C-alpha cells in the first residue's frame, strides 16, 4: 500500500491546495464571524448565533458533499480530503448540528446564555475535521489540539456549576496528560522512520524491514495507541469519562460522547491502517485486548449507575469497545462498520441526550434514572422517542444500532476473531439490562412527583425528529448508507 505516490486522480499533490481544506476554511470563517457578532448583540438574542451556526454547518455540509469521490491533497501532502475523511466530516457536522439544536434550551434553563458556546462548538468541529483528513502526524496533532482546547472550555462552560468546573479542569488535566503520550509516540515514530507523513512512514517501514525490530518504533506505536485510547475513552484509559460526562453541560456531554470520539477513531484508523500496516499483527492483538476490556468495563460499570448521564457515559465507553471490534478486524467490512456505527451512534446518543436536556432541571437536577418514572405515559411521544434511542443503543432491530453492530461483528467474524464477536454479543446482551431499566422506570413505575418543565422548543423538537429519522431510516433501509461507508474505507 504505497500511498506516497498519489494516484494521478488526486489533484495538486504538492503545494497549497485550499480545496483540500475547504470545509475547515468555511467553518472557521463562520466561527470567527460569529465571535465578532456575539460582541454586538445582547443576551436575549444569543439564540440567533445558534441559527447562524446551523446555517454555517449546512453550508459546510454542502462543501463536504460536493467533495465526495474527488480526493484532494494539499499542503505538501499533509492533508488529504478523501472519502474516508469526508464521511467522518459528515458525522462531525451531524453531531454539531444536533448538539446546537439542543443547546439553546439548556442555556436558558441554566441561565448561562453566553454566545461563545456556538463558535466554540464550530471550532471543535474544525479540529475534528482536520484530524480526519490529516495525513501527517503534525496535522493530526494540530487538529486534536484545536478540538481539545475548545472542549476544555465547553466542558466547564456552565461556570456557576461546581461539577461543570470540575469536569473542565479534569478534562484539561487528563487531556493534556494523554496528549503528552500521543506526542511522545509521534516523536518516537519520527525518530525511527525519519518522517511524520503517514504514507511515508509506511513506505519507509516496507523498504527497511529492520526497523520493525527497533524498540523505538514499537514504543512509538504503543504510546500513540495509549494517546488515542484516552481520546476515544477506551478502557483502561477511560477514567476521566464518567466524571467529565456527568459534570459537563448536558448538550456538551452529548457532543463529546459522539464527535470527538469519532474524530479519535478517524485519526486512530488513519495512522494505524495507513502508516503501520506492517505492524498489524501487533496492533490487532493490542486492540483485541482493548476492545474486550472497553466493552466489558463499560457495560459492567453502567449496570450500577443511577445518574443517567453517568450511565450513558459508561455506555459510550462500551460503544467505543464495539467500534474497536470492527477496528481490530481491520478488514473492509470492519472498517466500514466503524464508519457506519459512528454516524448511527451520533443520532441515537444525541437523541437520548436531547430527552435528558428536557427532563433535567436547573442546576443539573433530575438526572437520575428514577426521575423518569411515569415519563412514558405522561409524554407518550417523547417516551416513544426515548425508547427508540434506547433500543437502538441496545442494538435491537430495526434500529440503526442493530445494523451497525451486525456490521462490526460480521467484520470480526470474517477476520477470524470469532471469540471477540462472541464476547461482543454477550456484552451487548448485558448492556440491554441498563437500557431496559430506563424503560422500566418510564413505563412500569408510577411517577413520584408531578412533571412540569420547559415546553419543548422547536429546535429541540427538530433534533428529536432528525434523530429518530437517523435511527430508523438506516435501520430499515440501510442500503445507501452502507454503500457510502463501503466507498469511504481506507483500503
Amino acid at each position, binding site marked *: 500500500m504505497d500511498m506516497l505516490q498519489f494516484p494521478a486522480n488526486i489533484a495538486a499533490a504538492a503545494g497549497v491546495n485550499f480545496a483540500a481544506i475547504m470545509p475547515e476554511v468555511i467553518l472557521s470563517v463562520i466561527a470567527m464571524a460569529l465571535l465578532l457578532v456575539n460582541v454586538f448583540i445582547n443576551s436575549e438574542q444569543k439564540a440567533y448565533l445558534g441559527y447562524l451556526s446551523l446555517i454555517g454547518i449546512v453550508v459546510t455540509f454542502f462543501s463536504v458533499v460536493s467533495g465526495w469521490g474527488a480526493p484532494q491533497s494539499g499542503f505538501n501532502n499533509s492533508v488529504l480530503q478523501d472519502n474516508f475523511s469526508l464521511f467522518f466530516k459528515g458525522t462531525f457536522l451531524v453531531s454539531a448540528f444536533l448538539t446546537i439544536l439542543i443547546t439553546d434550551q439548556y442555556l436558558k434553563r441554566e441561565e448561562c446564555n453566553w454566545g461563545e458556546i456556538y463558535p466554540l462548538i464550530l471550532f471543535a468541529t474544525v479540529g475534528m475535521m482536520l484530524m480526519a483528513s490529516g495525513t501527517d502526524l503534525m496535522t493530526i496533532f494540530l487538529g486534536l489540539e484545536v478540538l481539545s482546547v475548545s472542549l476544555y472550555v465547553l466542558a466547564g462552560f456552565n461556570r456557576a456549576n461546581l461539577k461543570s468546573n470540575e469536569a473542565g479542569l479534569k478534562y484539561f488535566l487528563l487531556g493534556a496528560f494523554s496528549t503528552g503520550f500521543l506526542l511522545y509516540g509521534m516523536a518516537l515514530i519520527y525518530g525511527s522512520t525519519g518522517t511524520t507523513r503517514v504514507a511515508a512512514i509506511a513506505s519507509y517501514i516496507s523498504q527497511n524491514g529492520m526497523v520493525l525490530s527497533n524498540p523505538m518504533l514499537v514504543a512509538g506505536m504503543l504510546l500513540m495507541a495509549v494517546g488515542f485510547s484516552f481520546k476515544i475513552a477506551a478502557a483502561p484509559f477511560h477514567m476521566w469519562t464518567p466524571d467529565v460526562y456527568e459534570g459537563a453541560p448536558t448538550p456538551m456531554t452529548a457532543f463529546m460522547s459522539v464527535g470527538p470520539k469519532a474524530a479519535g477513531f478517524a485519526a486512530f484508523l488513519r495512522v494505524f491502517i495507513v502508516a503501520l500496516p506492517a505492524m498489524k499483527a501487533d496492533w490487532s492483538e493490542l486492540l483485541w485486548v482493548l476492545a474486550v476490556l472497553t466493552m466489558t468495563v463499560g457495560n459492567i460499570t453502567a449496570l450500577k449507575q443511577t445518574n443517567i448521564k453517568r450511565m450513558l457515559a459508561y455506555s459510550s465507553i462500551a460503544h467505543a469497545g464495539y467500534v474497536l471490534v470492527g477496528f481490530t478486524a481491520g478488514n473492509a467490512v470492519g472498517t466500514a462498520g466503524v464508519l457506519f456505527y459512528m454516524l448511527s451512534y451520533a443520532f441515537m446518543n444525541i437523541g437520548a441526550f436531547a430527552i435528558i436536556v428536557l427532563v433535567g432541571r436547573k442546576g443539573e437536577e433530575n438526572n437520575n434514572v428514577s426521575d423518569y418514572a411515569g415519563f412514558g405515559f405522561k409524554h407518550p411521544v417523547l417516551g416513544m422517542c426515548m425508547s427508540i434511542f434506547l433500543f437502538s443503543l441496545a442494538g*435491537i*432491530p430495526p434500529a440503526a444500532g442493530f445494523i451497525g453492530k*451486525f456490521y462490526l*461483528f*460480521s467484520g470480526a467474524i470474517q477476520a477470524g476473531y*470469532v471469540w471477540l*464477536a462472541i464476547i461482543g*454479543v454477550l456484552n451487548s446482551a448485558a448492556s*440491554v439490562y441498563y437500557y*431496559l431499566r430506563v424503560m422500566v422506570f418510564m413505563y412500569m413505575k408510577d411517577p413520584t412527583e408531578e412533571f412540569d418543565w420547559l415546553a419543548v422548543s422547536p429546535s429541540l423538537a427538530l433534533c428529536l425528529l432528525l434523530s429518530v429519522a437517523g435511527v430508523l431510516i438506516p435501520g430499515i433501509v440501510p442500503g445507501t448508507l452502507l454503500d457510502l461507508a463501503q466507498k469511504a474505507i481506507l483500503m
Partner: protein
Amino acid sequence: MGYDMTGFPFLTILIFLPLATGLCLLPVWNCRPDLWRPVALAGAIAELGVACLCWPAAAAPAKGAPAGFFLFEDYPWIAEFGIRYTLGMDGLSLLLVILTAFVTLIAMLASWRPVIDRVPLHYLLILAMESGIMGVFLSLDLFLFYLFWELMLIPMFFLIGIWGHGRRIYSAIKFFLFTLAGSLLMLLAIITLYLIHGSQTGVYTFSLYGLIGTVVPHSTALWLYGAFLLAFAIKFPLFPLHTWLPDAHTDAPTAGSVILAGLLLKTGAYGLVRFGYPLFPAAAATLSPLLMVMAVTGILYASWIAFAQSDMKRLVAYSSVGHMGFVALGIAAWTPVALSGAILQMVNHGITTSAMFAMIGMLDERTGTREIDAYGNVWGKAPRLSFFFLFFAMASAGLPGLNNFVGEFLILTGSFKVSHLAVALAGIGVILPLVYTVRLIQELLFQEERRPLIIPDLTVTECGMVVVMACLDLYIGLHPGPLLDMLHSPVAILTGGAG
C-alpha cells in the same frame, strides 16, 4: 421474481395488517375510548380471515418457490449484504399462522374486561406481537427471520412489565435477557454460515434455501447448530433453560400468558424444524440424543415440579414445559410420523394451554387469587365455568378423544423406532400430567369450599370463546385428518433424508 399465483401479497398483508391496525389506535389514543376495542378486535378478526383464506391456496404450488411452498414473495432488500425480503408459506407455516391469528384473538378477548388502563397501548402491543410472530413463521431469509425474532420480544416485555402482577418487572427483564442472550449467539452463527457460504460460492446470501446444503466442516457445524439450538431451546423452553418461563407466565397478564404459551413457545420449535435441522442435518443428527435427553428430562421434571405448585398459573406454566418436551422429542426423532405429531402437538398445545390460561384469568378476575388452596366447590358455584375448566384440563392431560392425545400418540409412535428408552420414559410423562391435573381439578372444583369466594358463572362472550376452543379441541381430537394432510408434504420434504 416469484409472486404467489394470484399476485396478491397475502403474506405481506398477514405480517403488517396487525401492526397497521395497532397504529390506527394511535390517533384515537386520547379520545374515542369506545373505538379502541372494536378497532383492535376488527383487526384481529380480519387477520384470522386472511389467514384462513390462505388454506385453499395450498392446492397449487407457487411459481419460483422452493418445493412445498404455495405462497411466496421475494424482493431485494439490503443488496449490499445479499439480504432479501423473502416470505413463503407451506403447510407447516399455514397451520401456525392460523393458530397465531386465532390465539391472538383469544388473547384479545381474554383481556377484554381485566385490562382497564392504557387500553390502546395494550392492544397495540398485542397486535405488534402478532405481526412479529407472523414474520417469524413466514420468513425464509435468515436475516429477516432474526429481525422478527427479536421484534417479538419488545411487545412482550412491555405487556409483562406494564400489566403484569407480582414481580412483573423482574420477570419482564428476565424474559427479555434470557431470550436475547440466546438469540444473539444465533445471530453470530447466522453470520458465520453466511460468510462460509459466501467464501465457498462467491454468492453472499441470507436466503434459507440458498444456504441449505452449504458444506460446513462437521466440528464448525456443531458449534453453529449449537448456537441455533441454544436460541431455540431457550424459547422452547427445554430443561434446563426453562427458568424464565414460570416467572414470565405467572407474572404476565392473561393476554401475555396466552400469547406466551400459545405462540411464543412455538417459535422455538418452529425455528428448529424450519432452520436448525435443514441447515445442519449432520450436526442435528449428532446432537439429537442431547435434544432427546433435554426433552425427556423436561417432561419428567416439569411434571414433578408442577405437582408441587400452589399457584394455578405456575402449575400450567410447568405443564407447558412438559408438553413442549413432547414436541422436542418428536423433532429429535425426526421421522415423518414423529415430526407430524410434534407439529400437530404445537397446534394442540397452542389451543389447549391458551384456553387454560384464559380460564385461570377468568377465575383470577372474579376472585383476585390464583392460589389453589383458596378455592373449593367451584362446580357448585359456577358449573359452566367448571365444566370447561375440566374439559381443557383433561385435554391438556391427554385424554383420548381430545386433541393432545393425538399429538402425543403420534410422537411416541414415531419416536419408538429411534429410541425405545426415550419413549418409555416419555410414556411415564404421559401419565404424570394426569396426576397433577386430577389433583388440581379435585381441589378446585369438588373439594369443600375453603374461602367464601363469590364466583359468577361465564358470561355469554366468555361462553362463546370457550365453546369455540372446546370444539376445536374435540375436532382435532376426533378428526385430525385435514391437519395431517396439510402437514404431509412439508414433513415429507423436511425428513426427505431421514424418512
